[in-house]
């Protein structure tokens, strides 16, 4: 399928992503717009850099809301980068005209998650798979189209070809549909294939076949893959390198084998321990991070993972919202009476809702700052190891409430740690991580 290609004898990366941000503006309220107030934005991708060498398979691994799919779409020009640079085959993709983007997408194709939604039910496979050739003006007559589609079908194992050329999606099983989707992606002879969860909608017993097909196609067609997934197990099997994403950023990137053998970032460690495994000798531990991926409109200060991190310490970004969570967690475990009693000692918690290192808890009606302070002390005594307290710089008790000041936060940058890069303060000697901390 690949006529002129000897890969150019350079080591230039096929794809180079530099400090890419993709933010989506929120519409906000009508009054807000009239008054020119900024409604904020969803920071789906928030400063990502990596390079992809020709022939490489890089896994972009993260949970929902990590920004992995938005990043993939940004690389294809399906979402617009707010900032940064994406160089593909020597050309800048950010800011490309729609016309140039169309040319770009011939060489960088995408396979989507849901094979059932990726094929038009009214198109037979000849029409669907041949569609990109028509769009890009590659096939000029029916004969050429048919030959090219037949070729693609053979590559993906949908043979005998005559049986599938005029089949409709409804005639196909999930695995067969995904093969057809892959055939459509390879028909323009791309260099890069971005596969977004290509097997996660398929049954266990057929996932292996689709992964095997992708491995074979990579060799046959000299493809480079960006494999986007939440599934660590397939990523481990399939990828040369892995980038772990959390809330719009890469927190750890390196060779697959070393990341799985010795994960460095506390988030990566938690993820690996949380995967349920059919091995009866292995148990998912109970001390996993609490909570969920936070809102990407106003991500946590400092390291985005700090509110859930079992290893978080002083500089990680402690703030008012963490204090609110701590109080609410306590209340979830109290009986109704005890909760009402404590609640009356505190005014509204709403003042703790903004991302700020200054937190004010005002006293409820009929109580004073001392009562609030007593409550905070009681919470602390109950669980003195709660990492939030390490971030507290000062507590001042006034007559109307308590002011808690947290330490200034530091944004974690990707640091070289052995053969990989990790964005975590535990590995930054200048921040003096607590004792017993890993030798990087």
């Amino acid at each position, binding site marked *: 399928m690949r006529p002129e290609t000897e890969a150019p004898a350079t080591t230039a990366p096929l794809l180079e992503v530099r400090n890419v941000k993709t933010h989506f503006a929120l519409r906000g309220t009508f009054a807000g717009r009239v008054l020119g107030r900024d409604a904020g934005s969803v920071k789906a991708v928030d400063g990502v850099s990596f390079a992809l060498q020709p022939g490489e398979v890089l896994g972009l691994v993260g*949970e*929902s809301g990590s920004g992995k799919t938005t990043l993939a779409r940004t690389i294809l020009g399906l979402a617009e980068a707010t900032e940064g640079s994406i160089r593909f085959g020597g050309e800048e993709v950010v800011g490309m005209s729609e016309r140039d983007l169309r040319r770009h997408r011939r060489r960088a194709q995408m396979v989507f998650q849901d094979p059932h939604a990726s094929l038009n039910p009214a198109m037979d496979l000849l029409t669907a798979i041949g569609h990109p050739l028509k769009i890009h003006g590659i096939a000029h007559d029916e004969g050429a189209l048919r030959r090219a589609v037949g070729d693609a079908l053979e590559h993906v*194992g*949908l*043979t005998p070809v005559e049986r*599938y050329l005029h089949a409709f999606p409804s005639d196909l*099983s*999930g*695995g*067969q549909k995904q*093969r057809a989707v892959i055939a459509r992606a390879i028909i323009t002879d791309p260099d890069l294939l971005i596969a977004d969860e290509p097997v996660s909608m*398929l*049954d*266990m*017993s*057929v*996932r*292996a*076949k689709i*992964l*095997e097909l992708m491995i074979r196609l990579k060799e046959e067609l000299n493809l480079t893959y960006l494999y986007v997934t*939440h*599934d*660590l*197990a*397939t990523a*481990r*099997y399939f990828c040369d390198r892995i980038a772990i994403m959390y809330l719009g950023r890469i927190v750890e990137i390196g060779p697959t084998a070393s990341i*799985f053998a010795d994960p460095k970032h506390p988030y990566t460690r*938690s*993820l*690996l321990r*949380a*995967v*349920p*495994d*059919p*091995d*009866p000798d*292995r*148990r*998912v531990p*109970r001390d*996993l*991070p*609490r909570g*969920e*991926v936070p809102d990407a409109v106003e991500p946590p200060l400092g390291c985005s993972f700090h509110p*859930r991190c079992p290893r978080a310490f002083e500089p990680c970004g402690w703030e008012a919202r963490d204090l609110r969570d701590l109080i*609410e*967690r306590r*209340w*979830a*475990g*109290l*009986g*109704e009476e005890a*909760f009402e009693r404590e*609640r009356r000692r505190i005014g509204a*918690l709403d003042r703790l809702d903004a991302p700020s290192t200054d937190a004010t808890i005002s006293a409820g009606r009929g109580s004073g700052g001392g009562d609030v302070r007593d409550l905070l002390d009681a919470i602390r005594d109950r669980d003195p190891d709660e990492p939030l307290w390490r971030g507290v710089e000062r507590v001042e008790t006034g007559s109307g409430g308590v002011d808690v000041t947290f330490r200034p936060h530091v944004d974690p940058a990707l640091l070289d740690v052995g053969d990989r890069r990790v964005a975590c303060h535990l590995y930054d000697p200048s921040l003096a991580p607590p004792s017993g901390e890993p030798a990087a």
Partner: protein
Amino acid sequence: MTSAAEPALSVRDLRVWYGTPGAPVRAVDGVSFDIAAGETLGLVGESGCGKSTLGRSIMGLLPEGAAADGDIRYGGRNVVGLTERDLRAIRGADVGMIFQEPMTRLDPLMTIEDHFAETLKTHEPGLSKAERRRRSLDALGGMGIPPTRFGQYPHEFSGGMRQRIMIALALVLRPRVVIADEPTTALDVLVEAQILTILTDLRRNYDTALLLITHNLGIVAEACDRVAVMYAGEIVEDGPAEQVFRAPAHPYTRELLASIISLRTQALRAIPGAPPDLRDPPSGCRFHPRCPDAMRVCPAMSPAPVWVETGSTVRCWLHGPAELIPPGGTEPLERRRPEVADEA
């Protein structure tokens, strides 16, 4: 545990079929099992094997055009064939259900408090307002939802919290049996682990009988005492989870376990072929066209359930009974190899 007593849920020879323009689809075809109080049974199988239909039939939630016969017993009666009116009284009180998509099961216009009030008013009309509030806050607190959020609307919660609310809503009526259909499929790995912990604690703290329907064998290993493996409308193996995972007795269970891509996978493996069309399933053992161990007897006769030493019940001629297999029946079955693309 009180396992000597009558099972909390008992299913006998259940058949469920859907009418289609052609032949009926036999989604569940002669299924029997029990779940004791405080026990969790994992029901696993691939899409289309009938596991969700089975779960819904226990709740009496079959779609129009479906019919069932056989026995489904809990709360002292057979619920197959009950009227919608009788079913409504049982649902929630005797058997609760946790669905896959928590967002679509909560009413966006009702606060969490409203949801609980409605459920409790319907099923326990004698409760005072204060008692309703206490029961609701207890159930929510057990799921880690703070009381400060009682008056909020579903959209104000994250996916994992909504699923916790759904579980609390099912538990507030203290049903003896809970059906959970893929309760963690839409959730992230870390949140999934949190929900699994909750489900594991459920059987200990409330003595609930739990039927956990999933396609994920890892979840079964994590959260279940027993596992029932379903293929093409039938349970082919039912036994203690640990034994089944260590020494699967049915070739389908074995191949399914081998095809899982886990963190320890060294080589990829898939099961050849695809699950059958349930309008016209294969004769004899339904797995025989894909089974690497198939023998001559397999397409000829349906295997009967056999008790094996691992404590499982299995339907496979490899385990006999020998006296029912005709002479020459254990010879390997000759057949054409399925084509590469003949797959699920």
